């Protein structure tokens, strides 16, 4: 017994080293779960307020650029509004009224890592919930990972574990968009079967086959593709619609029917 205690005492430093590394490993692994508490990440209110402060300071020098982008987005929306209201009658108010938007400012963003996240200045108090979809004026941005009272952390589309159910709008082919970790301008387009004729420049939009994103949110355009003789699916890349290097304002999508849709789907899955 004495020997054992001596042994433990002699290797206490190494033991502490192993213990601390174990704690770190546990933290790393447990963070990979889809949802987690807003504690050890950037939606923590203290951390986010510091980020918000540095962001406000740097924003001041880019006000002109941000303004220009917002004006451009406004113009685009006005054009779409003009098209949408021209002679169209809303047939089903439940489906047209299904989604609500929450605006948020990006206070921290990364796009050069292999797992990218961003922090928004909207949280539980503004109605943000985990797993909500995030879009910007020009397309899809990501999905909410965790939320605190006033801030939210978002898994960016530039994250290798985020899969987006999409479709090619010209052919209506269901496919999946996933980032490969290389360029922040491009992502991979997966599971397009070989009998479909795709072209460079085809637009890829969200499919609407889940409760997170509505149908038809722009994801990107096909930039290159190839098909080897024995491939079942195309190997294609898309140019992302959103420029992740300059993000300032985004919108969170609130689906009013999410509970109904998810519980129905879960019921079917169980059978």
């Amino acid at each position, binding site marked *: 017994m004495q020997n054992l205690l001596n042994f433990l005492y002699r290797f206490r430093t190494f033991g*502490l080293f192993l213990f601390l*590394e174990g704690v770190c490993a546990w933290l790393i692994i447990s963070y990979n779960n889809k949802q987690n508490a807003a504690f050890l*990440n950037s939606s923590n209110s203290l*951390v986010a307020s510091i980020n918000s402060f540095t962001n406000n300071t740097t924003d001041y020098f880019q006000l002109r650029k941000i303004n220009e982008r917002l004006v451009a987005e406004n113009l685009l929306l006005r054009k779409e509004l003009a098209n949408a209201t021209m002679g169209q009658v809303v047939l089903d108010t439940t489906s047209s009224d299904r989604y609500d938007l929450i605006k948020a400012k990006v206070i921290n963003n990364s796009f*050069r890592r292999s*797992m990218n996240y961003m922090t928004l200045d909207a949280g539980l108090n503004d109605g943000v919930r985990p797993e909500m979809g995030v879009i910007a004026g020009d397309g899809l941005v990501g999905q909410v990972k965790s939320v605190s009272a006033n801030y939210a952390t978002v898994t960016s589309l530039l994250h290798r574990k985020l899969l987006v159910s999409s479709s090619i709008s010209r052919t209506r082919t269901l496919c999946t968009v996933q980032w490969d970790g290389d360029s922040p301008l491009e992502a991979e387009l997966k599971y397009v079967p070989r009998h479909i004729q795709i072209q460079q420049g085809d637009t890829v939009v969200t499919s609407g086959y889940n409760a997170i994103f509505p149908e038809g949110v722009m994801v990107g355009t096909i930039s290159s593709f190839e098909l080897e003789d024995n491939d079942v699916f195309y190997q294609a890349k898309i140019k992302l619609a959103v420029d992740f290097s300059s993000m300032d304002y985004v919108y969170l999508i609130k689906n009013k029917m999410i509970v109904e849709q998810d519980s129905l789907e879960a019921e079917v899955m169980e059978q």
Partner: protein
Amino acid sequence: MVRINYVQQALHLVIFLLLQIPFLYKLILFDVAFGFFYIGFVLFLPYGLNRSLAMLIAFAGGLIVDVFSNTPGMHASASILVAFAKDSWFGLTVGSSDDDVYLDWNELGVWGSVKYLLPLIFVHHFIIFTVENGGFNSFGFLLAKISYSALYSFTIVFGLSFLMAPKVRRI
């Protein structure tokens, strides 16, 4: 005998660790070189400081960085390893004739800095980028990221430690 200059350690905390936070993923050169100079804070912890204490300090420091970068545990684990290895590594590479080593730029000099700082920074960056990458896939790009980032961080740590070194009266 451990000599601790508390003023200097506090200065290191501010310059290395706190200054890093707003620049965590902003100091990027050519898309491959990331500057993680906060590790200077761990590297310049007093020589001979109780190793357990040093590891706990490194754990706390790494975790602060982690919280800001959404990577709980990643920077902390690499920092702990550096804190665990740094004194032995210093003895092995630089060594000293005096008993009471005073770990700063004046003690290390240019060549000593290269021998003491660069390999530890390389190991630290190796762990961070491999864990973030989730393994060794696309190894070439990973290795480029690790090497350029290590050189880049070393340059910053070296420069900052040089600027913060107490003036030595020259004869």
